[in-house]
Every structure is written in C-alpha cells, then in structure tokens.
C-alpha cells in the first residue's frame, strides 16, 4: 500500500502536461511525471518519495510514437521496453532493453522512465549515447531538441518542470555492427554487474557502460585507448580502467574488485568480437 494520497492527472497534450506541472508546483504539490510508474510505485510504497500529484504522460500522442521520420528513428518516451524490443527498429537498443528487468515488467517500464529513473543502471540509455541521439524535451518555454551528450551527464539534466518527449536517432546508426553484454551475479534477470554496449563506426569501436560506476556513461578517453591497436589489448584495458569517470560500485550484486575483473573480461570480449567485424 502507498501510505499517502496524491492527485492524479492524465493530460492529452505536451502543452497541458507542462502547464499542469507548473500549476501543481505553484500549489506546493511536488508533482512528478509518471510513465510506467514502476519506480514511482516502488519508492512511494516504501515512503521514499511523497509526490502530491502524478502526471501520467501515456495519453500524449507524441510520447507513444515509434517509427522512421525523415531518416531518423523517433521513439516516444512512453514506448515500453517490450514494445521496443518486439518492433526492433534499432537492434542494439532492443537487445539492451531486453536485458532490463523481465518480460512482464518490460510491458510496463518505458524508455523514458528507464532513462530518467533514479536507480544507478538506466541501461537503455547506452545505445542512445553511442548513436549520438537527440532528445526532444518539453518545458514551460516550449520544446527544445538537444544532443544527448549535452543533457545526459550521469543522468538526464532536465530543467524544473521539463519532461522527455521523444528521442531521435539517425538511421545510419541503426545497422552498424554492435555487441551487447550484460553480466549479472547469477541468472538471466537482475541488475548488472557490468553492462557493455558497443558500436563499430568507421573502423572505430565506441563503448558505453552501466553497472560499473553509479551512473551509465560513455567516455571518449576510454574509447581512444581501446582503439589504440598498436598497444597490446591487456595494456589497453588497464589504461581504459584507469580512465573510469568514477569509483567502481561496491554493493550486494558484486564487490568493486569483482566488478573490475568482470569489466576487464567484458572489454576484452567486446574488442575481440568487434575487431573482426
């Protein structure tokens, strides 16, 4: 049971949603945008968050689209991870999404919810970082389109009252050679010890990581080192590890030294596979 009450709204346009947010905030109701609701329900149930109002984004048409428009793959923020994998417009994204939670939960978890979530992993963002996707963000001043690299810095940096409407990805990236590895402590369901997603573009391997630090990331420095083919692979990996953008997570899924060991192996597997493609 959720031990407090909140108000519930389901606007049918982007404009209505941002206006509602503003209004509810001015009334001191601490509104939150609601997509799949899996994280909001879980946290509200344990009283870790107490929103006074939730704004369900699922009736906004722009948030449910998925398809190619003018050489770009457009995915609405409320598209569920299972719908995304089933339609499979971007195989690396489908495979990464399929690694999140389990099939039934993915019927509810949305792309936007996963990217904007507060838990560390946010795995679905990795392919979008690799494909230099663009984010369509709505706020009280209108809609802005920005590179993912400008707004996703450890987490999606939204201004107060903004929400993610869609992601745009150039069609060019959808068919590049890729690998995706998700290494867990045990079994096929659960949070990652290490998730690596990688794309090969113009003979260069681009990598992105979740489960390693307390945020998902892509690092140009790590990619530069990993692509230095004149250096032996083991040395490249050692150098790459020294360039991690934060300390390695140490939690019940795995200790930091174990994660580091798994990361090294996974980097090696990634390079081996993609160097041959």
């Amino acid at each position, binding site marked *: *049971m*959720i*031990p*407090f*009450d*909140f*108000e*519930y709204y389901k606007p049918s346009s982007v404009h209505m949603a941002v206006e509602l947010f503003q209004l509810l905030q001015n009334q001191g*109701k*601490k509104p939150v945008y609601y997509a*799949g*609701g*899996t994280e909001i*329900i*879980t946290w*509200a*149930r344990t*009283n870790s968050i*107490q929103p*006074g*109002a*939730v704004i*369900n984004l699922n009736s906004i048409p722009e948030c449910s689209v998925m398809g190619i428009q003018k050489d770009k793959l457009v995915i609405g923020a409320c598209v569920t991870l299972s719908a995304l994998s089933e339609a499979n417009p971007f195989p690396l994204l489908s495979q990464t999404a*399929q690694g999140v*939670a*389990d*099939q*039934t*939960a993915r*019927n*509810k978890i949305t792309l936007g919810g996963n990217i904007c979530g507060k838990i560390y992993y946010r795995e679905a963002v990795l392919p979008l970082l690799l494909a230099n996707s663009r984010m369509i963000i709505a706020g009280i001043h209108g809609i802005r389109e920005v590179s993912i690299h400008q707004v996703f810095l450890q987490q999606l940096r939204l201004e107060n009252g903004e929400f993610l409407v869609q992601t745009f990805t150039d069609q060019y990236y959808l068919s590049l050679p890729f690998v995706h590895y998700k290494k867990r402590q045990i*079994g*096929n*369901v659960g949070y990652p010890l290490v998730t690596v997603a990688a794309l090969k573009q113009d003979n260069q391997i681009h990598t992105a990581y979740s489960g390693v630090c307390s945020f998902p990331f892509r690092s140009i420095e790590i990619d530069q080192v990993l692509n230095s083919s004149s250096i032996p692979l083991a040395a490249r990996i050692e150098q790459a590890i020294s360039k991690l953008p934060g300390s390695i997570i140490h939690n019940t899924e795995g200790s930091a030294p174990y994660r580091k060991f798994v990361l090294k192996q996974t980097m090696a597997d990634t390079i081996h596979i993609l160097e041959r493609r």
Partner: protein
Amino acid sequence: MSSYNSALYPVEMEINSEVQTIRIRAADILLYTLRDKFGLTGSKSGCDNGDCGSCTILVNRQPMKSCLMLTIEADGKQITTIEGLMNSQVQNIFAQHQAFQCGYCTPGFIMNCEGLRNVHPIADEETIRVWLESNICRCTSYEEIHHAVKDIFTPK
C-alpha cells in the same frame, strides 16, 4: 505524513468479462483493489516489488504485474485474473502435469502462459524461456512447469 488529496476517483474496468465501477484513491494499487475490493484473491502478493510474478494478471490480454500498477491506470481496460481462467486449457494442463507444490506462484505462471499464448500463439523455446523468467517458484517446481508449458505450446 503528506497527503494532498484524499478524493476518490471513479474507475470503470472490465474484470473477467464483467464491467465493474469503483471509486478508489489514486494511490491504490491494482493488486490490492482486486483482492480487497473485488474478493479476487487468486492474484497473490509475493514481493510487492515487481520481482516474483505471483501477482501477474492480464491487462488487455498482456501480462502485467498488478503490484506495479495503480488501479486508476486500469480505467477503461480489460482485466483478466486467475478467476477468469477457471477450467481453461492452460489451467488444466498445469493440473495434469502437477506443475506446482504449494501453489502460491501458480496463478502468476498460468496468467503469464495465457498472455504468452495471446501474444505468441506459436511460441518457440527461446520465447518461452524469456517469458517464464518473469515468474519465480519458491518451491522450485520448474521442471514440472516447463513440461506443462511445453505441452501448452505443442500443436495437438
């Protein structure tokens, strides 16, 4: 404790082919509305956290964890619970294979299989494996459950 609005919201949904209307708190969770307000106690609470699958129901023929859904989200939707699958083929095959021990997880497994049949009537081994990962059996009846599910998807 903050509580902004204790208003009750009207919800109309079809549960096991019957239209039902109810007034609920926006914060009410569907699993508990089904159990406590409609007496449909076949859907079980195992973890309340989306991990175990014992609360699985069908929403518009697709499996959902009812512990991760607000009742208000079900407005206008078709809900099927285990009570709606009485004497169904999936239930009978689970019984024939004795695909349970204590039976606590069984409604969730049956609902998930029914949902799988709705979405993939001819599911292959890999699809079955991926879908069944959504449910946990504490009694480890996996062997028997696997046989039952294979039987369900074997053309007769």
